[in-house]
């Protein structure tokens, strides 16, 4: 058993296009972008739909649940993560479709598997934003 490290919470850059996303994180909501023209959900959130080019897109609240698509256990981080480890970098496929880069936390890194179910938790940063990370769903 190797417990994942406690992580730093680097502040993301917030711009007018993505401010509603970060505001939602402060309320514990993970929202993504939905296209009314083609019906696709995309990640990371942007006004333009990358699948059809329409700007007829809107925010969609997710259930905050997903599946681990792949992950890496970094032994020692760099930059903001300098000296931190082990920690899990992962792609999580949301139940609503898109796959996002994140961390898996509060886990035994040795027991983690691709396909594991995970749920979002938010970690407040110094900015008006919280980081969406995921933890294993209790079986």
């Amino acid at each position: 058993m190797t417990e994942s490290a406690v992580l730093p919470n680097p502040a993301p850059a917030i711009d007018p296009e993505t401010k509603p996303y970060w505001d939602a994180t402060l309320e514990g909501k993970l929202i993504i972008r939905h296209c009314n023209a083609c019906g696709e959900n995309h990640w990371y959130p942007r006004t333009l739909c990358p699948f059809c080019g329409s700007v007829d897109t809107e925010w969609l609240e997710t259930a905050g649940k997903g599946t681990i698509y792949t992950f890496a256990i970094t032994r020692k981080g760099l930059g903001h993560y300098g000296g931190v480890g082990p920690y899990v970098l992962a792609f999580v496929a949301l139940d609503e479709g898109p796959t996002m880069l994140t961390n898996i936390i509060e886990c035994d890194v040795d027991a983690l598997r691709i396909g594991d179910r995970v749920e979002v938790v938010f970690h407040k940063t110094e900015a008006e934003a919280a980081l969406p990370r995921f933890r294993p769903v209790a079986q």
Partner: protein
Amino acid sequence: MSIRGAAFIAGAYEHPKRVIPDKSLGQVHAEVAAGALADAGLSFSDVDAYFCAGDAPGLGGISMADYMGLKLRYTDSTETGGSSYIAHIGHAAAAIKAGKASIALITLAGLPRQMSSNLVMEGSEAPEDPFEAPFGPTVHGLYALAARRHMYEFGTTSEQLAEIKVAASIHAQYNPNAMLPKPVTVEEVVNSPMVSDPLHRLDCCVVTDGGGALIVVSPEVARDLNRSVVKVLGHGEAPKHTNGGKVDVTFTGARWSGPAAFEEAGVSPKDIDYASIYDSFTITVLETIEDLGFCEKGKGGEFVLDGALQAPFGKLPFNTDGGGLANNHPANRGGMTKVLEAVRQLRDEAHPAVQVPNAQIALAHGTGGSLPTRMGAATVILGREDA
């Protein structure tokens, strides 16, 4: 319209040093440029086109043109990370074919060993940055994402990945300039410390100072030079990105750049006598071999067994200079050195122990950026002068 035969590589030079504490970045660019020009029998005043990427200091190619005193009618500073210099060959050939240039210089240089770590992926103004950088994505962590998924889908093992490092290290022992000149075993690779599980330290390339340069010229110029030249047969490039969140980390942009290059060259994977495959990490090589069509998707792990990558007699002799995995990865960008060794092979100038006998057609492939998120891919196919 095709660039097949429109241009020739007439000069090639690799900086012999791997640690350079006593020079400026501009100086190293200029040194490798001078080396490649001397190799071609040309001088700075002959150059009319300059190609560089993000490692060149200053404004596009103009700062280095100023430093070197170049009088140019064409510049291109296409930046696709480590794949840039392979893309530049295609761009130079197209410019030459269009009559916009006749003698093109391409340079790469970097001094990453003289700086604090630049492997941190944070702090850019890119639109994806707020959604990725806060989660601690190191370069090795990102490539480990690809490795684990490839293992999951196709049963690829750490031992199979290790075979790639082993082959590179066996080649490196013949390169007096190699950063890691000692052959390693599969056991040594898989027992080296984990950096980002499932990638071990020895799954990673070296970090080196240095650089390299190429001279790409028109057929008319090539004819007048007293030097064996290498023919540019075809080129392809393709960025790959996260596709709006439909992420698939089990393939690279080589899936698109490879077929484009093969088609232009009029050859297929079975015609390739020697391949320089971008090797930032062992998994980069494995996925690229599959994507270029040397084996089926998912079969890369089996393909690399039994010395398949070892020169001179493996199925696909690769990276005979030791590659980025054991020789040189200057500026954290391996595309230039990939071309340099392909040129050596086609000129019969590789070390005799690793020279592929009668190598007629070679491939060089570059990967830039981060395979599982946003990467550049560029493939060039080269032949002997009369190919």
